[in-house]
């Protein structure tokens, strides 16, 4: 049995001559919350549609729980719940009827409907036509629809789109609960890193159809190690002094030099050293690239 809930191997996909997904090798470990990040139009939704077999993938490129999707379509889909783009809801049916219809299709006990409605906080609007729901309510109904079959794997495409801060927090907590208590695997896409940062255990960053980073959230944090920024008058002398001191020089621009950060005492020592050697230190400080900038950096590279 594969350790991955989702695995794609060198997946390529194109609409006509336009390449949408390029050599994508996703590895979503079981039980993880996998944040699938990328700017708008990066290929996230296309990838999710491929994972749902809505778009046909080439043979032997997509595996769900170790099984090739094209040859195990129904078995794979029965383990998945999904919310793709804006929730697909029958507007002329009430929220309750939408869920009941899904129960009919999946052969689930209709008793689950009430449970799902209360889970997403729609019990009071249960009999209101779903077409008259607000965007946030539709989104929550969409999530209820994807959860009703109690799937092992959830694919959520920007699930917090259109939700208010309270709603976002609720969804975030729901995801954490589903993963930790119920051992679900969740792939959640977003174009906002901040949103994913607090819930995801793993992250994949995609841009222009290519996977630029994949790893645990800690590995992503490691990419953003703090650095020391020093502004001084004599840059070459400073460079010389610093290299004798054993500091790792990362880059230099004009009057500024960046070195890797070790600890506070070391920063103090460097300052003393520079001043004692007759240099003027205009400023010295620690800079930490936040994940948001890191994300922008990563996605702007290709």
């Amino acid at each position, binding site marked *: 049995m594969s350790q991955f809930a989702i695995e794609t191997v060198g997946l390529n996909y194109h609409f006509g001559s336009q390449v949408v997904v390029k050599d994508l090798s996703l590895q979503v470990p079981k039980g993880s919350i996998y944040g699938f990040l990328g700017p708008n139009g990066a290929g996230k939704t296309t990838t999710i*549609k491929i994972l749902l077999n809505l778009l046909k993938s080439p043979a032997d490129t997509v595996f769900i729980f170790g099984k090739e999707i094209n040859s195990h379509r129904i078995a794979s889909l029965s383990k998945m719940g999904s919310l793709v783009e804006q929730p*697909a809801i029958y507007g002329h049916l009430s929220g309750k009827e939408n869920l009941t*219809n899904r129960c009919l*299709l999946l052969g689930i006990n209709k008793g689950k409907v009430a449970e799902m409605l209360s889970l997403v906080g729609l019990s009071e609007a249960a009999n209101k036509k779903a077409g008259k729901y607000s965007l946030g309510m539709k989104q929550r109904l969409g999530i209820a629809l994807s959860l009703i079959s109690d799937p092992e794997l959830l694919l959520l495409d920007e699930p917090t789109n259109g939700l208010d801060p309270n709603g976002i927090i609720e969804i975030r907590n729901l995801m954490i609960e589903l993963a930790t208590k119920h051992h679900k695997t969740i792939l959640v896409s977003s174009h906002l890193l901040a949103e994913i940062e607090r819930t995801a255990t793993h992250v994949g960053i995609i841009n222009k159809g290519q996977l630029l980073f994949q790893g645990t959230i800690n590995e992503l944090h490691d990419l953003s190690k703090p650095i020391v920024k020093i502004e001084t008058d004599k840059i070459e002398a400073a460079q010389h002094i610093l290299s004798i001191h054993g500091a790792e020089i990362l880059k230099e621009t004009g009057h500024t030099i960046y070195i890797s950060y070790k600890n506070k005492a070391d920063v103090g020592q460097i300052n003393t050293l520079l001043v004692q050697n007759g240099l003027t230190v205009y400023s010295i400080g620690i800079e930490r690239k936040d994940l948001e900038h890191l994300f922008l950096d990563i996605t702007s590279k290709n």
Partner: protein
Amino acid sequence: MRSLYISFISEFYKSRKTLAFWAAVIVPLIICGLIAFGYYTSSEKILKYNYAGMMLWFRYSSAALGVMGMLILPFYVMFMAFSVNNIEHKNDTWKTLFSQPLNKFSIYAAKYLYATMLLLICILLFALLTYSTGYLLQALVPKYTFNDYNPAIILTKFYSKLFLASLGILSLQFILSLVWSDFLKPMGIGFVGTIMGIITANVGWKYAYLIPYSAPTLALRMTAASKGARPEDLPIFTQEVWVSLTYGLVLFIAGYFILAKKNIK
């Protein structure tokens, strides 16, 4: 088989509150009701012709069959094929439907079967209402001669022919509505097709039977022509009915391949 059954039930559940479903009931009620009302209020004028039982039934039922076969039926079929598919286009639910662990063919076939069933309900109601309102008129206007002839067989045959003759249109319109999400394209093509069907059938063009849209008109026109023969001997499976069934089957299968190849946006 199970996926087909549950998809079918779900189709019913989804559309039971829509006009597409209720039209199957309302259209026959209104049309048969209006004709019966006309026969009731202008009974004196009709009684002057002194129709024999069979002729009276013939006049009475062809009032419904005439409008029905020529115009209402093709348009109802178009509207229904459109609605069954539009429910998914409008709500953007094709993607959800096809990401359920259900066989794709079952989902498609259930939709088609559901449309066929609506058509059947509509036609069945037409037949039943024509039959029952005839006897109701007899009770209300005792001078009518509806009691002298039992039209059960002939009505069954008429309406069976009409049903079978419209399956070609159904499959064709079903594909059009599957491919296009807008109302105008399938309706426009259907409208032109129907007009063409009526004209070619009525001018007696040699190849009119090859146009699916002319099948209902042809099915009824042949009936009128064979008036001299015993009406009970009316054959159901005439040329245009076979053509309609062939179109129906071939396009039904083609529709599945179109859907299976289509990427779900």
